[in-house]
C-alpha cells in the first residue's frame, strides 16, 4: 500500500522557514536566467555533439529548437539552432546508434515515409541525412515525440518501430541496411470526442500506442517479440541465423477470440443473482513464464476454472497437447506463478473469491462488509504442478459501507481541491554529490532555494510480495481493511518534506528574481556527476521564465 504522509503543507513550510542554513559542503552553482517561449510544452536534455554537455531540445510550432550547451553554459536568447520541419505530420525521436553510436541525433519521420537524421557538430547543425524513404508509416498530424528507435536485437544498432494504420512495422537495422519489415498488429488505444453540445466537456483525441514487449522467451540469448491484442497472442522467436531477425509469421499463437467464443458471452438474463461472482467463469488469462526451470517460457492458459499448461521449447510451443490440466471449482478470480516454497521453481497460485449475492450488495450499501478471497498454492515439482494444493491462504477484505465510501471520497476530493502551491512548497529530489545511499532535497520557499544534503533515504523500487499484508510463509490468514487504508491517507506534500521538516538547510540560495509561480526540476546537464537545477519563477502569455543553476 502507498500512503501519502503529510505534514499539513503550510506547517512544513513554516518549520522549514524557521531554521537558518548551516554551511556544509554544498555544491556551487552558476546562474543562468532562462526564458522559453510560452508555447513550449517541454524540453528534453540530451548530449547531441558528444562534448559531455547536454543540449536542451524543444518543439515550437513546426520547428525543433536545440539550445546548445557549452562549457560556459547556455545562451537562452540566441544560443540555439533550429530544425525546420517541412510537414505538419512529423514523428521525431532522439537516436543513439542509428548513424553514429557515440552521439545522439535528432531523427524525424515525415509523413510516415521519410526518415532523416540531424546531427550537431559543435554548435552547428549538419545537413539532414536521409536514412530511409518510402516507409509505410502512418503518422497523425502534429509534431510528436514518438519512441520509434530501439535496439531490439542488442547489436548496438538502433532498429525502427514505425506505427502504421493499426499495425507496427519493425525494421531490423544491420550493417547492410534495414531488413524487410515485420508487420504486427498494434494495440492502439484512442479516445475521441467530436460531438457538439457538450458544454464543459472537451473535444479532441488522445492516442496511445504501447511499445513492444521484448524479452528472451526461449533462452537463446536473443530478444523475442510478444504481441498481444484483444484477439491474439503472437510470439515471434528471434531467428538470428536467418536473413530476417524475426520470422514473417508468428512462431506460435494463441487465438484469444476463440477462447472467448468457447467461454460464451455474458447474458444478463441468465445471471444467478445468488452468485454474481459466477460470471468469473467467463474470464481468461494467458501467462508466459518458465515452469520447468529450463529457461524457456511455458504457457499457462486459464479459462474460467480450468488451467492448462503447455510446454515451451527452443523453437516454439507445443500447443497440441497440454502437459497438464487442472480444474478448480468455485469462482476463480486470477492465477499467477510465484515461488512460494523458495525452491527456485514457480508455483501456481490460484485465487478464488466467495459467492456474492445481490442481497449482499444491498446490505453493503448501508453496512460495512467483507469478502473472502483465497489463494490455493499448487507446488511445482519441476515438471508440473501438484494435482492438489498444499497450502491455502485466506485474505479477508473488509470495507466500509458504500455510503461511507462515498463520504470518504468526497472528503478526500475536498481536501485535495483545497490544496494550492502555497500549501505545498515545490520540491525535488536531486543528486548533488557522490553519496549514493542518500539523496538530496531541494525546496523552493519564497525567493529562496533551500538545499538539504543527503537527507532522503533512497526508496526500494519494489515492494515485497504481499508486502501490504505482512506476508510470511508461516502464516495463512490475513486481513485487509479498506477503512485503515483510507484513514491513513493524508493529503498534501510528499514524504520527502516530512523527512526534512526538523532539519536545517545545508545551503540557502537567494534567488535574484521574485518567484511568483515556482517549481523545480533537477537533472544532470554538464559534464560532472552533479545535478543541475531548473528553478521556474514565473510564466505569462509570452514566456516561461526562471533560473538555471549549473553546477561548477
Amino acid at each position, binding site marked *: 500500500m502507498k500512503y501519502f504522509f503529510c505534514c499539513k503543507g503550510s506547517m512544513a513550510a513554516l518549520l522549514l522557514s524557521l531554521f537558518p542554513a548551516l554551511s556544509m559542503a554544498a555544491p556551487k552553482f552558476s546562474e543562468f536566467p532562462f526564458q522559453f517561449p*510560452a508555447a513550449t510544452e517541454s524540453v528534453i536534455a540530451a548530449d547531441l555533439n558528444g562534448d559531455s554537455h547536454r543540449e536542451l531540445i524543444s518543439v515550437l510550432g513546426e520547428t525543433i529548437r536545440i539550445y546548445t550547451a557549452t562549457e560556459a553554459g547556455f545562451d537562452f536568447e540566441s544560443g540555439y539552432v533550429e530544425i525546420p520541419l517541412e510537414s505538419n*505530420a512529423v514523428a521525431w525521436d532522439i537516436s543513439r546508434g542509428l548513424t553514429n553510436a557515440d552521439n545522439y541525433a535528432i531523427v524525424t519521420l515525415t509523413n510516415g515515409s521519410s526518415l532523416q537524421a540531424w546531427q550537431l557538430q559543435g554548435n552547428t547543425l549538419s545537413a539532414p541525412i536521409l536514412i530511409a524513404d518510402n516507409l509505410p508509416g502512418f503518422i497523425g498530424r*502534429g509534431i510528436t515525440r514518438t519512441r520509434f528507435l530501439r535496439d531490439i536485437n542488442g547489436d548496438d544498432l538502433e532498429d525502427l518501430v514505425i506505427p502504421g494504420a493499426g499495425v507496427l512495422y519493425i525494421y531490423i537495422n544491420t550493417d547492410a541496411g534495414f531488413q524487410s519489415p515485420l508487420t504486427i498488429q498494434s494495440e492502439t488505444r484512442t479516445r475521441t470526442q467530436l460531438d457538439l*453540445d457538450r*458544454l464543459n466537456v472537451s473535444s479532441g*483525441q*488522445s492516442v496511445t500506442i504501447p511499445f513492444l514487449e521484448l524479452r528472451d522467451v526461449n533462452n537463446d540469448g536473443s530478444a523475442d517479440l510478444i504481441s498481444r491484442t484483444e484477439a491474439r497472442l503472437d510470439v515471434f522467436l528471434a531467428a538470428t541465423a536467418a536473413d530476417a531477425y524475426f520470422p514473417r509469421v508468428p512462431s506460435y499463437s494463441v487465438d484469444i477470440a476463440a477462447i472467448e467464443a468457447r467461454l460464451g458471452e455474458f447474458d444478463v438474463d441468465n445471471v444467478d443473482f445468488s452468485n454474481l461472482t459466477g460470471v468469473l467463469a467467463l474470464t481468461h488469462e494467458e501467462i508466459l513464464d518458465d515452469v520447468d526451470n529450463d529457461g524457456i517460457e511455458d504457457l499457462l492458459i486459464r479459462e474460467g476454472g480450468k488451467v492448462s499448461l503447455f510446454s515451451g521449447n527452443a523453437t516454439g510451443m507445443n500447443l497440441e497437447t497440454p502437459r497438464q490440466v487442472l480444474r478448480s471449482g468455485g469462482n476463480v478470480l486470477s492465477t499467477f506463478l510465484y515461488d512460494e516454497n523458495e525452491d527456485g521453481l514457480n508455483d501456481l497460485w490460484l485465487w478464488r473469491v466467495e459467492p456474492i449475492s445481490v442481497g449482499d450488495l444491498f446490505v453493503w450499501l448501508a453496512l460495512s462488509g467483507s469478502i473472502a478471497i483465497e489463494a490455493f498454492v499448487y507446488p511445482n515439482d519441476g515438471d508440473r504442478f501438484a494435482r492438489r494444493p498444499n497450502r491455502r491462504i485466506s485474505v479477508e477484505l473488509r470495507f466500509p459501507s458504500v455510503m461511507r465510501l462515498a463520504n470518504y471520497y468526497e472528503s478526500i476530493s475536498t481536501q*485535495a481541491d483545497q490544496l494550492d502551491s502555497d500549501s505545498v512548497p515545490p520540491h525535488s529530489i536531486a543528486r548533488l554529490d557522490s553519496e549514493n545511499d542518500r539523496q538530496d532535497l531541494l525546496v523552493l520557499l519564497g525567493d529562496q532555494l533551500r538545499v538539504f544534503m543527503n537527507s532522503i533515504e533512497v526508496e526500494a523500487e519494489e515492494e515485497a510480495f504481499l508486502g501490504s499484508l505482512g506476508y510470511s510463509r508461516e502464516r495463512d490468514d490475513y486481513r485487509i481493511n479498506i477503512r485503515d*487504508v483510507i484513514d491513513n491517507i493524508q*493529503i498534501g506534500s510528499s514524504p520527502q518534506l516530512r523527512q526534512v521538516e526538523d532539519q536545517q538547510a545545508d545551503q540557502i540560495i537567494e534567488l535574484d528574481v521574485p518567484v511568483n509561480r515556482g517549481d523545480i526540476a533537477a537533472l544532470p546537464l554538464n559534464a560532472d556527476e552533479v545535478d543541475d537545477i531548473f528553478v521556474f519563477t514565473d510564466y505569462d502569455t509570452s514566456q516561461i521564465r526562471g533560473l538555471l543553476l549549473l553546477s561548477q
Partner: protein
Amino acid sequence: MNRRFFSLLALLATTASLPALLSAQTNYTAFELRRQDNWGPMRFVDLNGDQALDIAVPHYDAVLGRELHVYEQLDNGNFSAEPQRIEIKTEIIAIAFADLRPEPGEELILFASNGVFSLSSQLPGYTGNLKLLLQWNLLASIPDLEQVRFTNLARDINDDGHVDLLLPGDDNYELFLGQGNEDFVAAGEFTTLNADLTPIQRRSLEADLDAELSINSERGIVIDVNVDVPSPFAGFVQSVAREGEDQENLLQTDQWMPTATLAHLNADGLTDLAYINAGEAGLGRLNIHYQRPTQGIPAQADWQQDLDSSGDMRLTDVNDDGLADLMRLSGEGDDWIARFFLNRNGTFNLSQADQVMRFNGYEPTLDIIRLQENNAPVLSVSYYTIPVVDALRNASINRIQLIYANDSEMIFSARPVARLEESFSADNARALTEQMSLRFDVDGDGRKDALYITDNGTVAARRIDDELQIAPEPFWEYISPRSVFEFEVLSLNADDRPDLMLRHGNTTTLLVARP
C-alpha cells in the same frame, strides 16, 4: 462514487426470462436486433427516402474491417432481416447523416483527417459515389480501426433548410454553411481555447484521485490509493531515457479543446454559440458568440464571464422565454446543488445564481420537461437514498422522483409539487436499471407520461395529471420475453403513433406502432 453504480447493481440482479406475452393498448410490430455490441451506438435515419427511419449500426470484422449495417424499415413496420452493408474505409474517423443530394433519402457524411466527404447508401461502393465536400484538418486525426463513430457535427445552424457543418480543427472551429447541392461556404472561424493562456496555464491542476485494487505476481494483492496534485511544470524538463530504461509507450498524444455548444442565446431567433474555457484564478470562462444574419459566427466572443465551472453544466430554457439558460449541477456522494442562471437577452450574471436548489441523494438526474405542448416547463428530479433503518431491516434503498412546478417569482417552486418514493431490494432490483423518465408520450395523446421499468423487468407507463401527480398504477405496459434495461420513445415513421426502442442484455427490440 460511480454514478452508474445503481444501474449496474440492477443489471446484475436480473432473474430468468419471462413468458412471451404481449399486453398493450397499442399494436406493435416487434423487431429484435442482435448485433456485436448491443450497447454500442445506433442511429435512426431515412436513407432511402421512404419517410420511414432505418436502423444504422456499426459492425467490425477482422477480415472485412469496419462496416455500417443498415436495416431498412419495411412497409409493415418490420425491418429487413439482413442488413445492407456499407464499407467504412480505414481513413474515416466519424460519420454523420444528412440530406445533401437531390435523390430521396439522407446521405452519409464521412469525416476523415483532412477532408469531409458525402456518400450515398443507394449507390454501390465508393467509385462514382464518394464526393469531397471540403478540405479540412479535423481535430482528431487517427481513426479507430475497429469502431465506427457517429457524430453530430452536421445540422442546420442558420435555419435555411440546408445542413451546415461546424468543424473542429487543430485549434479552432470553422462554420461552413450549406448552400444545397453539396456546396458549402465558410462563414466564420473561432477558437474555443483561451488565447491569453499558454499551454502551461491551460493544464488542469485539479487533484487526481486514483485507486487500484488488483492481483499480480510481483506484489500479490495490490491496493494503491494515490492523490496527485500536479504542478503546471510537471514533466516539463525531461531526460532522454537512459540505457535499459523502460519505455512504456511508443506514442502518446493528447489534443483537446473546449467543445462548442449551439443554443438560442439572444432574442434574434438565430442559433448562437457558447463554450467554457479556462478563465482567471482557476475559474472557467463562459464565452458567447452571437450568430450574425449574414456574416455567420464572429471570431471574437461577444460576451464573456468567469464562473465556477465544476460539475455538470447545461444550456437549456428553464423559464420558457425561448432563450437558453444555464444550469449547473455540482456535488459528490449524497450532497448536490443545482444552480440556475437566467439568460437576460444574451447575458448572464454568473456571480449570483437566480435559484439554488439542494438535493440529498445519490446519482441525481435533473430534466427540464414540458409535460404538455403549451404548458410551462417543469423540473424533474430523481435520485436515490439509503435510509439506514430500511437498509438494516430490509436491505433496501429508495428512489425518489420529484416534480417542481414553474414559478413566476422564482424559476421553480421551492418545494416539489409531486413526490413519488419507491423502495427497492434484491427482490425487485431489476426496476433500478433505468430511472423513471418523464420525457416521453407513449400513447400519443399530447401529454408526457411517466415511463419506467417494473419490478419484473417490463416497461410500463403511468399518467401525469394536471396537478403533476403521477398515477399510482400504470395504464400501459409492454411485456417482452427479455428484461428491459433501457427504453426510449421515438418516431420511426411518418404516422403520429409513438414507437419504442427497448434495450435488453444482448438484443434490442424496436416496436413500431401499427393501427
